[in-house]
């Protein structure tokens, strides 16, 4: 990723890194995930802590 920066401002075009676990290991950015795994990550729901 290249970034334009001038003396007054910086950060243009710089995204946030979002680290997620894929199949037991972590992946630094999701750009490299395949389509199916991206869809799965998108669908993940959080699990609540209360006992039923």
């Amino acid at each position, binding site marked *: 990723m290249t970034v334009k*920066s001038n003396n007054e401002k*910086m950060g243009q075009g*710089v995204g946030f890194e979002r680290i997620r676990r894929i199949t037991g290991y972590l992946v630094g950015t999701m750009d490299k995930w395949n389509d199916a795994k991206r869809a799965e990550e998108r669908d993940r729901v959080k699990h609540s802590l209360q006992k039923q």
Partner: protein
Amino acid sequence: MIRSIIKRDGRVVLYEQGKIAAAILRSMEASHSGDAMDAARVADHVQRDLEARFTDQAPNIEAIQDTVEQQLMNHGFNDAAKAYILYRANRTRAREANTGLMRTIDEITNIDARISDMKRDNANIDGNTAMGSMLQIGAAGAKAYNEMYLLRPEHAKAYREGDIHIHDFDFYSLTTTCCQIDILKLFHGGFSTGHGYLREPQSIQSYAALAAIAIQSNQNDQHGGQSIPNFDYGMAEGVAKTYRKAFNRRLRDATEDLIGSDDEAEAVSALIKGVENELGETARLENTKAFTDALAAALVESYNISQADAQRLVSRAQKRAWAKTDRDTKQAMEGFVHNLNTMHSRAGAQTPFSSINYGTDVSPEGRMVIRNILLALDAGLGHGETCIFPIHIFKVKEGVNYNEADPNYDLFRLSCKVSARRLFPNYTFLDAPFNLQYYVPGRPETEVATMGCRTRVMGNVFDPTREISFSRGNLSFTSINLPRLAIESQGDEKLFYEKLQGMLELVAQQLLDRFEIQASKHIYNYPFLMGQGVWLDSDHLSIHDDLREVLKHGTLSIGFIGLAETLTALYGQHHGQSEDIQAKGKEILGFMRKFCDDKSQELKMNFSLLGTPAEGLSGRFIRMDQKRYGKIKGVTDREYYTNSFHIPVWYPISAYDKIRLEAPYHALCNAGHISYVELDGDTARNVEAFESIVRCMHDFGIGYGSINHPVDRDPICGYVGIIGDVCPRCGRHEGEMIPQEKIDELKRMYPEMPAFQGIE
């Protein structure tokens, strides 16, 4: 009169009857029927037939081949006709494979990985780089060859059509998956990387550096990940050596200061050695009072100093040596983590896929290692980035680190705090019955360790005296498209089990075929893994031996994907929805496990059942099944099949129930398993809540688990945590600029904030 023919690519060439006769003769020879005379006679008839049908145009290849088939049958050479048809089919397959291969290489060459899903099949290979592309082209070529030449037709068909998935197929003819490297065994006496010999390391820095090199070297001999099962026990030796040296040095300095000498190195060193020999105890992090007293007494005697001075010399040297060793260990652990995130393997296309297991060494040295590796993990990389590698696995054991009174409980607590911030460590549970059965206190090799993705090797049918995790690993694995078997059974349970039995047989045979290739290799094919004795018993092999017997310590694993979709296809619901269906799920995996156990006993080899870590596979099967069966609700209506035995990721369920429902499958999947719990960021930051989930996993008999939560980072201001649309620290949106003054202001508030380099 036939003068010319049209080839497949449209070129027109001269007709040669001899070529047809030769092809016919080959078929006759292959089927042991007919001779050259017969071949000539059939070829004549082929020509006459063609002349009758192609009066004003040249025949094409397909028409000629159809005619040959027909005439062979007309003349009663049915077997030769069959051989000819098979030959044609094979040629067609080869042609298609070639075309497919060229198309694949074209895509690798010309299409950006951001657009090409194929190039993102493995998220750890950067398909946009030169070396990454070369690796992918090599893989594509190997796959085409392997399918054409190495697979039985029925296995090739099952693989091509998505009944099964043969993992790491590009390496089919080359090597095995993974290994748990016993780092102590490797270090003792030194080792060679194939590019140079390394002496036994003498300090924690060299222990850590060489551990990284060991992982890197072994990665080049296998296609899967590399793990150290005894990271704490292994590095502890390095800590002990560093401490002993530091203590020697500090005691010498203090003594020289006290008596005003510059030359006490040998004398002090001899003094320490004398006490060590006398008491059978080396100078180490926590020496006994007897040792300290004996050393003080020796100093009194040698230097004629007071008892109080001598005691003070020893205790100051101990304190300073401890601090120095702790600093060195911290640096060594940071260096190790940096190394594993930056070093390259496989021609630079990948960082080695690495894992380390620790948590159970209760020695002061081991504890120092565990604390510092956790702190290094917590600190992150140079800009505070979360480390991707190695995968950290914390081994949880009652009596060692699980309960408040346990010696390493403080480190377990620390691990929860770190994991709540950095996603690692994951947890493996030695108290789960299927792990506890192997556990022998005081023998670390009997503690289960995982290859970070989830692979586990413990039982050993081949050699029941070696039921250990060290120096072993998986040989190869193949996964079954379980949902397809269920869809095709159309709710008929009996039919499903028949199909499953057939598929298990097919996969077992395919794994054995692959084993035959692996077994015929020699130690020189794996200069590190086998040549350095990393793999169990490989140190007993001679250059002429094949690897057959030693490889039998490894596992052949049958994997699967989509238990949830399988159950929905068969019974209308998945195992998260009903206890009855949960029982059905256990029946299916129980059936598969029994198959593996029976096969193991029959062949005295280690067949095991794997909850496949499907990355590329998550989309491959379902795309094919959508084409075949359309979108079936709850089965094929998403872009992925649910991983292994997991409750579907989209299904709302409490953490407690998810763990309770998935735990029984850990016991069945002896080749590997993992369960995840997804927490929102705020809950994850609550260490009590985090620990309660780890405890819940332990108590329900989970074998290996981890807790997912969002870890985001803004490279501009260095904030690590949860970032929604706006960064909570610098207030910018994704892609937005912020003024330099703002950065300067933030730098004053957060001195550890990294300087943004412009490119990351």
